[in-house]
């Protein structure tokens, strides 16, 4: 099942991908300086994320600990598809065209893309 995370939930996922498991207090402490979120905000978001299967809660210890159930790659794939659908009508070729036209791709980047495509063809 594809789990979609919102922009706010992505921040918590980033936190957990960097280091898991983490308690709610640890997550709040990490995110508070950049977001200004209170403990209650993080609780609500984590509850929602648990319900949708993005994270799981381990309540065997003294404090509840959270671990991500989806990898960064899985979440990135979903978000990339969403982005492609939204901006490039679902066509990756349009994105590559755009990047080449705008000069955002270096020669190394292009070489890597070509290597990936060649590897895929084999």
């Amino acid at each position: 099942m594809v789990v979609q995370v919102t922009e706010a939930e992505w921040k918590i996922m980033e936190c957990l991908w960097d280091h898991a498991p983490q308690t709610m207090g640890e997550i709040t402490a990490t995110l508070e300086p950049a977001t200004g979120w209170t403990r209650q905000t993080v609780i609500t978001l984590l509850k929602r994320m648990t319900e949708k299967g993005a994270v799981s809660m381990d309540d065997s210890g003294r404090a509840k600990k959270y671990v991500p159930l989806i990898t960064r790659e899985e979440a990135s794939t979903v978000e990339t598809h969403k982005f492609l659908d939204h901006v490039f009508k679902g066509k990756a070729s349009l994105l590559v065209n755009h990047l080449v036209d705008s000069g955002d791709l270096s020669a190394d980047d292009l070489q890597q893309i070509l290597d990936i495509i060649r590897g895929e063809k084999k």
Partner: protein
Amino acid sequence: MRSALIYNFLIEANIMASIAILLMIPLRKLLRKQVGNTAICFGWLLVAIRLLCPLTLPNPLINGIRPAYLDDAVIRPIAGQIKVRVVDAIGDLGRVFWQAGNRQGYSDMQKIAVGVDYNGYPAILAWIWLAGCALVLTWFVWKNVQFRTALRRNQIEEISGKLKEMYLQLCIERKVKPVPVYFTDPVPGACLVGVIKPYIVLPVITAPQDVKNVLIHEICHLKNRDYLWNILRLLCCAIHWFNPLVWIAATMSRTDSELRCDDRVTAPMNEEERKDYANVLVLASARKSMPGLGVMATGMTMTGKRLKSRVLTVLSEKQTKRWLTITFAVLAFLCLIAAFCTSEWGQNIRQSISYMNPNPIHLVPEHQERQMPENLQDWEKELWTLAGYDYEGMAPYRSTAADQQWEDAGSLTRVFYEHDGIMRYCTFAEDGTLLELQDMDALWLSGDYLSSLKYSRDETVRQEISDRLIAFLDSVNPGMSQTIDHMEIDWEGTQDGQIWMSLNGIPKDQETGEWITFTVCLEPEWQIQYFACISNG
């Protein structure tokens, strides 16, 4: 309720408001810097008042535009003119069909024209309008329910702690009664939602350094009571859903409300604070735009050229000229009063002009008497030609209508004419005076025709028809037209693409004089299908 009342309101409101909208579109661009966004929004408010208030004030200038033969006193002159012109336009279109040889198209147009005039089309259109209103309102309600449900589902918590303290302090500074503020995720952007119990929705991902400016923006929406403006916009669009200018105006006024909000936000700010605020606007635009016009929520986002001009306005120094703002507001208000002056002035404004008693058409009394032709058959040919018929092919046979004695007419001769199974006849007095002429196959004789006003409402055309009939009378019975005081239209009817008018020549001596009756086919070809100068009563 009479549909005429709905038409009076809709037609007057839309004509006046559309003129105002067309004026507002360039004025808001030209005068924004000079008069400010508050004055522009005031202009939109006046447009909304004109669109929503079914008020009418008397105006002597309106008396002159009531169309003649508008046989419904409830219809006010502006709506009456529209009705008459629509009917005429449909009739003209019908004639184009006729000229192109499309008889069916012509007939259809005639039916539509008569339907608009009499046969309940206006009532049907009124129901369509009502259904449109219900549909648009339902759509608005559906969009709002959808939006509010999503917001409730995505609501995280009410703001608290230092953030709430800052918010309450901002409310005190801006003199606004605080409303709840909820962190929500996901949400396209910060907004003020609701009407009765409004609340602010704040995206939980709003950066801490931007929160203050975002909150000030929404507080200023609250101060401007923009949630009430939303209702006005929705009502205008729901009632006048058929007018694209109203939708354009609603969208523009929404943009202007945002700009007015920016004015209020930045009024006490220094240059640095303005830059920060402009930065927040640009960042907000990078997100999804707010839901459309139908949702009762104020958004913060604006994209493209509008964003550019918004940011430039925020960064620029205000150049509002107070005297120009006041002049604009006063002139706009006077225009609003004038836009309501749409009914007739005086006591007799409700007096209907009766269709059965039109203004008399006076005859030109001078005419030349002439001798009757000695050869009756030649004369018959001449009079049928004068009546608009082709005499060739008619097979006359005569009978002495001895059983029909008209006073002062002596023995009568009735001549029947048959042509392709169609019967016509003429009745002559002993001295050759034409007493009757009738096309017995005329469609109107069945009585199955619809009333029309196409020709009878136009005084010039009425006069032309009358003149032509008198010319016919002068030709067939010289001297007879002098007995007529004036002509009155009895009826005008239409069926299967034909239009007829029946006119009575009212004698000068109404005690003893005889009425002279004509029934003439006006379309598709001029034909005098019935003539009688003496009654058989």
